[in-house]
């Protein structure tokens, strides 16, 4: 029972890793959507 620290560390890495990856995906998605909005705006202004 004295190895709880290891269990905790492993969990932290797994969840931290997955959440971080999902977070970066979200970030990238947001940047792309922003880009798209901007593009559409320019398009409608020109067209």
């Amino acid at each position, binding site marked *: 029972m004295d190895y709880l620290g290891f269990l905790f560390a492993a969990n932290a890495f797994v969840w931290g890793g997955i959440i971080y990856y999902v977070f970066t995906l979200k970030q990238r998605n947001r940047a792309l959507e922003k880009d798209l909005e901007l593009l559409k705006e320019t398009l409608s202004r*020109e067209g």
Partner: protein
Amino acid sequence: MMSSDAVEENEEESSILVWMTGLAFLAAIIAIFIYVPTERTEGVVQRIMYFHIPSAWLSFFAFFVVFICSILFLWKKEREWDIYAHASAEIGVIFCSLVLITGPIWARPIWGAWWVWDARLTSTLILWIIYVAYLMLRAQSEAGSMRARYAAVLGIVGFLDIPLIHFSVLWWRAFHPQPKVISSEGIGKGMEIGMLATLGISLCAFTLLYFLLMGVRVRQEKLKDEIDRLKRETLYSS
């Protein structure tokens, strides 16, 4: 290109997938931390295995997908397969990293050392390097058919190396057997039914997560393509 209907349908599908993945992970967490009994010899640390093994399975599966998509790409030359291979390699490397991190954390209390040059560990490490190199190759070259072709060749070459690496590392170590080492097969043998069920749930949850992440990643790449296309068309054709 995707029509708006297809996008909506995709979103509906993916929201179902999100819920399923979430529920599966909830079930897995309950099973791992509450339901499953603590293993007698290894103690509480053994619970790491319920993440470790699914992550390993997931990364191998992801690399296999890279292999298949690489072959399909070279055959059909469709950008679609290139996107799948790229997304799968990225996810595979993420989970392979998790395997390499959780492994030593488990090994330290059980084997008494962070790292042992055991066959399985060694081959996982080499695998990780191969696919990191794959992603580096992609990052090094500019978007286009060259990048896709080179990556596909590496995806094929890398996967074919796995059995060779496996045997070479296995025989390499067989000459200096380490009495302390318990291969992960050894753990599986004496498993109770409850442990097996927990592992099963966890495997399901991770597999669902893979498909969820793939979906997101692939859609992202396609969106990027779409934006680039729009940029080109609007800015060049005036």
